[in-house]
C-alpha cells in the first residue's frame, strides 16, 4: 500500500514535470518576457531542450522583440527644454495675473456696494427742505415772466418763500 502510494506519487510528479506543446505555447510569451515563476520557467526550459518546434516558436518571439527593441531612437528637438520652460513661465504669469484679477474685482465690488448703499455726501437738512429750496429758486427766477399778481402770489406761496412783492 505504502509502496503503491510512493509509486503513484512518483508517476504523478513525473507527469507534472512534463509539459505538452499546447501548454508551452500558451506560456511562451510570459517565459520570453521573464514573467514566469521559477518553477514553471524550469519546466519550460526542460521542454524546450527536447522540443524543436517550440524552440522555433520561441526564436520567432525573440526575433520580433529584438527587432522592436532595436528601432532607432529619434532625438528631441534642440530647444525642447527651453520651450517647455517658457510654457511654464507663461502659465505662472497667467496664474499670478489671475490671482490679482480676483483681488481687483473684489475690491471694485466692495467700493461699488458701499458707494450705492452709503451716501458719501450726507446733507445737513432734510431732503424735503432741500427740494423746496431748489424749487423756490427756479420759480423765483421765472416770476418776472408772470404779469398777473395773483398768480405770482400763489407761486410764491407754493415755494414757501416770503417775497414782499408778491403780497399785494
Amino acid at each position, binding site marked *: 500500500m505504502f509502496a503503491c502510494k510512493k509509486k503513484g506519487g512518483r508517476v504523478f510528479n513525473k507527469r507534472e514535470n512534463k509539459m505538452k506543446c499546447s501548454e508551452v505555447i500558451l506560456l511562451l*510569451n*510570459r517565459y520570453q*518576457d521573464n*514573467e514566469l515563476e521559477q518553477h514553471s520557467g524550469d519546466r519550460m526550459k526542460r521542454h524546450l531542450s527536447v522540443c524543436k518546434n517550440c524552440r522555433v516558436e520561441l526564436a*520567432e*518571439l525573440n526575433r*520580433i*522583440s529584438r*527587432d*522592436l*527593441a532595436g*528601432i*532607432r*531612437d*529619434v*532625438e*528631441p*528637438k534642440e530647444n*525642447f*527644454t527651453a*520651450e*517647455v*520652460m517658457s*510654457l*511654464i513661465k507663461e*502659465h*505662472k504669469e497667467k496664474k499670478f495675473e489671475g490671482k490679482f484679477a480676483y483681488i481687483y474685482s473684489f475690491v471694485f465690488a466692495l467700493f461699488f456696494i458701499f458707494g450705492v448703499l452709503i451716501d458719501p455726501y450726507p446733507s445737513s437738512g432734510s431732503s424735503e427742505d432741500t427740494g423746496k429750496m431748489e424749487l423756490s429758486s427756479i420759480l423765483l427766477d421765472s416770476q418776472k415772466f408772470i404779469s398777473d399778481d395773483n398768480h405770482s402770489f400763489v407761486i410764491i406761496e407754493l415755494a414757501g418763500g416770503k417775497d414782499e412783492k408778491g403780497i399785494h
Partner: protein
Amino acid sequence: MTIKKNGAEFSDDDVIRSVKNGNSANYEVIINRYKSRIVNFVYRMIGDYDESQNISQEVFFQIYRKIGRYKENNTFQSFIYTIARNITLNYLKKMNRVTFFSKLSEKGEGESIQAGDVTPDEKMEKDEREKILNLGLKNLIVNQRLALIMKIYLGFSYKKIAEVTGWSQPKIETLISRGKVNLINYVRLQEKGGKGV
C-alpha cells in the same frame, strides 16, 4: 541646471520636492532626464516626428501642472507615463485613423532617425525592416501597441504596466502576446510581398 548632491545626482523625488517648494527652474532637470524616453515613447505610439515633439512638450507641461498630485511613495516613472499615455491616447482618438495612416505612408518612416555606423546596403536593409516594423506596430490596435511598447521599449514589468494603465496582468499578458503574433504575421506578409495584415 545640473544639481549634484555629494557627487551624486538628486533623485526624482528630491527635484520634485524642490519644484513644489517654488524652485520651478529645477524642473529642467526632470525634462532633461526624461525627454528622450518620452519623445520616443510618443513617437512609437503615433509615428509622427513633429507631432511627437509637440505632444511630449504638452506631457511635460501637464506633469508640471499636476505635480502637486504626485505623492512621493509612488514611483515618479509611473506618474509621468500615466500622463504621457493619457495625452497620447487622447491625441490618437482625435485623429482620423484613415488620414493618419495615409499621412504616415506618404511621409515614410525614419526620416528623422539618425543613421548608425553601417554600410549603405546594411542601412537600406535595416531601414526597410524598421519601416515594416513601424507600420506593423501602427497597424496593431492601440492597446496592443501600448502594451508592447511599454514592455519592449520601456522595459516595464507586467506589474508596472498595470500601475500605469490600470489593466489587470492577465489582460496585459494577452495584449502583449497577441501583439507579438500579429506583428510577426505582418512582417512575414510584408517580406513575402503581401499587403495588409
